[in-house]
């Protein structure tokens, strides 16, 4: 009797459970933060999760500023002002040692979840694709690809035009190579996601530390 009841509840849950529970990541959360933070940030002992959206933080004015700094408009059904971003503050004991932040980006065949592991100054330590639907997912998710981003900051990304996929003049961005030429659109989506990620972190948590490099295309303003 109990077994039957259990079965019925399981069936009901499968049929009726709100889809939100099956697709919890409406924004861009780590699938298993306990495991993922420890893996992405070796030496960390804990983390704090913060949720923030452009809408809450500054509304349309902030959106306009983010788009200006990104060099592109937010597009489509899902890149909107109310997307909740999840920002993980990472700790070693009581000391804060960095951040992990992810964004959703539209790829050729599906959503790409681009996570950046950053130190307290917003310098990239690693890039991680939590999800990437592509024929060349294996090559793009190879740790070697993510390691190319180590040491870069938003200052370097200002030289990169997300719309054309080109850099203006010599830049540290030049070292980032697409491992599969056929996956050009996903490669560019990944770079756009990384730049958007950095801009949002600068707005949300770094107090616009890198805005000074914005209009000067990556050079410090005099």
């Amino acid at each position: 009797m109990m077994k039957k009841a259990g079965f019925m509840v399981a069936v009901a849950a499968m049929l009726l459970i709100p889809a939100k529970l099956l697709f919890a990541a409406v924004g861009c959360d780590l699938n298993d933060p306990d495991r993922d933070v420890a893996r992405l940030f070796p030496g960390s002992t804990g983390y704090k999760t913060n949720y923030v959206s452009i809408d809450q933080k500054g509304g349309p004015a902030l959106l306009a500023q983010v788009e200006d700094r990104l060099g592109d408009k937010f597009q489509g059904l899902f890149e909107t002002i109310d997307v909740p971003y999840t920002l993980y503050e990472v700790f070693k004991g009581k000391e804060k040692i960095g951040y992990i932040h992810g964004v959703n980006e539209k790829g050729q065949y599906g959503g790409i979840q681009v996570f950046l592991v950053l130190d307290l100054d917003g310098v990239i330590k690693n890039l991680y694709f939590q999800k990437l639907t592509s024929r060349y997912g294996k090559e793009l998710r190879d740790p070697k690809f993510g390691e190319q981003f180590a040491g870069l900051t938003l200052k370097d990304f200002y030289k990169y035009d997300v719309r054309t996929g080109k850099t203006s003049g010599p830049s540290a961005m030049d070292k980032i190579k697409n491992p599969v030429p056929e996956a050009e659109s996903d490669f560019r989506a990944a770079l756009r996601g990384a730049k958007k990620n950095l801009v949002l972190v600068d707005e949300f948590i770094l107090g616009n530390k890198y805005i000074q490099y914005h209009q000067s295309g990556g050079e410090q303003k005099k």
Partner: protein
Amino acid sequence: MIKIFNVAYKNLLRKKTRSGLTIIGIALAAWVLVSLLGFNKGYESSLNRDIDNLGFQMIVTAKGCPYEAATLMLKGGTGLRYMPQEITQQIAKEPEVEEVTAMLMQAVFDPNKGESGGYSAYLGVDPATFPQMKSFLEFKQGKWFTNTEAMEAVLGYEAAELEQREVGDLLLITEKNVEVKVVGILKRTGTQDDGTIFLPLKAVQKIFGIKDELTGIGIKVKKDADIAKFEEKMYKLPDVQVVSLAQVKQTIMTLVSTAKVMVFSIALIAILISVVGVINTILMSVMERLQEIGILKSMGATAWDIFKLIWLETLILCVSGGIIGAALAMATAKLTEILIRQLLPYAPSGGLVQISLPLVILTFGVVILIGLLSGVYPSWKAGRVRPLEAIRSQVE
């Protein structure tokens, strides 16, 4: 009457703290009662709505496979069992059946989903019958498939959001290396459909190399049909398993009713405590005012006058407590719903606590009735006071 009311009201004000605490006790009991009755009503109607939103009341699956979604979740695509597609026509011929729709669920492993990979599921549906059966589904963008074999996909809202897809975009079925074009994005429904990727049945059969086989059949039964009898008939089909949503609903309601009995018992205890509180307050008040009551009676007040006065005090306490309790229940309905969702193993979508005006009036009536009954003894006792003895006892 107004004069008696003023006297009763002023009597209660003489002991503000005591009266206040008694009102709080009644208010808490009324709060629990309104919330519980609201939950009783809300849960069932939400469950009914969720079941109606499925579009069918019965699902037939291959024997040994509890339900394809459960299997996919536990085993990915490896544990699915199939039944021949011809069963669909067989079932459609039954007189109790209004409509049937054939379904084929498949999953592929995507190594690039999460740290160690994950499954993506696709539900093949019959474009001729599924949209009719799910007529409540609305589109955010686009529409259903252009033909029965088209390599096209319609995505539930959450699935589209996760995959960042819009109409015109491509979707890759990894493992099979097949591209399908997104032709529709559904609006949110709050059901499992939000997370589903729909493809035409024949397209799924072709992509996954499964000929004339299904994982499930949705059945919409005629309104006047005997579902239990029809269910028995379905059980006689070879190698199939029947999941009746009426049965599912009954099982859930049985499980929930066990929890409800426990909570109602707690509510009953709360009501009993408040009844004792009312009796105690009024009785104390009577004992403290023996001399006054004696004087009133010596001035010509009858036992009935005294009874009415004390009973009115009880009524004022109960009405005040009832109003505050009902207001509290309405104000905290959302909070109660959140708490219930945390506690229940399964909660349907939509409002779980529905507090309506008739329900508030009913609870109010119950509280007043209980209060009045609890006021009978103190009022009767006060009415029986002998004037001279009462005056003398206070003087002594």
